[in-house]
């Protein structure tokens, strides 16, 4: 386990815990951004350059902005309720711990995955592009279609009722949709 991985992993886990645990939801969103950026760093460490940058572009650039806009639009920024936890939080915590246990146990015990790092595999943009336009062209098209549908669907869901469509009725969701358009790497 290298030092850099240790740093990345600890920062990521800490940010994730913060994202799920802080009282102020805007802070949660910012912590989420840090956690996702940490994941992007992990991708870079794993020689997945393209995915790492795409992760930053989509999550830091788009999803994070989308989340904070949603927070502002729903006025969740200042918690009015004394408790931030849902009534059944204890059960939830138990379940989460159990799931963690059953995930960690096999990882720790499995003999078949203790491998050394193989020589670096090149995943150049050129190769990825070839694969996207060749073998994976159908999923690519379907994803594009899905994003278009999500774009239109999100606009329609979030559109304020009984108002002319022409005005920008809801900056948050509009921006979300615009962002999701970028998320499909051209």
């Amino acid at each position, binding site marked *: *386990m290298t030092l850099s*991985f240790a740093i990345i992993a600890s920062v990521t886990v800490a940010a994730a815990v913060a994202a799920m645990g802080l009282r102020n939801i805007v802070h949660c969103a910012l912590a*989420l951004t840090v956690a996702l950026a940490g994941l992007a760093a992990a991708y870079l460490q794993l020689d997945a350059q393209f*995915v790492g940058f795409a992760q930053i572009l989509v999550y830091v650039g788009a999803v994070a902005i989308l989340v904070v806009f949603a927070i502002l639009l729903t006025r969740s920024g200042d918690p009015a309720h004394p408790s931030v936890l*849902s009534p059944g939080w204890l059960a939830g915590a138990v379940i989460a711990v159990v799931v963690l246990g059953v995930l960690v146990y096999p990882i720790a015990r499995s003999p078949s995955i203790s491998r050394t790092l193989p020589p670096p595999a090149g995943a150049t943009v050129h190769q990825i592009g070839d694969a996207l336009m060749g073998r994976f062209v159908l999923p690519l098209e379907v994803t594009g279609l899905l994003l278009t549908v999500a774009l239109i669907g999100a606009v329609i869901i979030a559109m304020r009722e009984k108002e002319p469509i022409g005005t920008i009725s809801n900056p948050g969701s509009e921006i*979300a949709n615009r*962002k999701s358009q970028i998320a*499909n790497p051209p």
Partner: protein
Amino acid sequence: MSPLPGYLLLSAFLFAIGLGGALMRRNAILVLIGVELMLNAANLNFIAFWRFGAHPEALTGILFVIFSIGVAAAEAAVGLALIIAIYRHYKTTNVDEMTALKG
């Protein structure tokens, strides 16, 4: 411990944290954030197995993650739009109060 279990453990922790958050928080946006974390944990698994797997030249893990990111973006957009629509209607983002679909 070799690097692969490290990444897998990181992924498992992120997944569990995301699940715990989604189960414990009462704000719908945070539930969504938790789901987002779980998705990313899964993505990390794909990348890790791609890197340490037998056929890295097949790029399957990378491409799966690329599509997964695209789908996650769509999911986030629609999910947040739904939350905003619900907020506009019920004036709440508390998941416990959203029980209109009760059987």
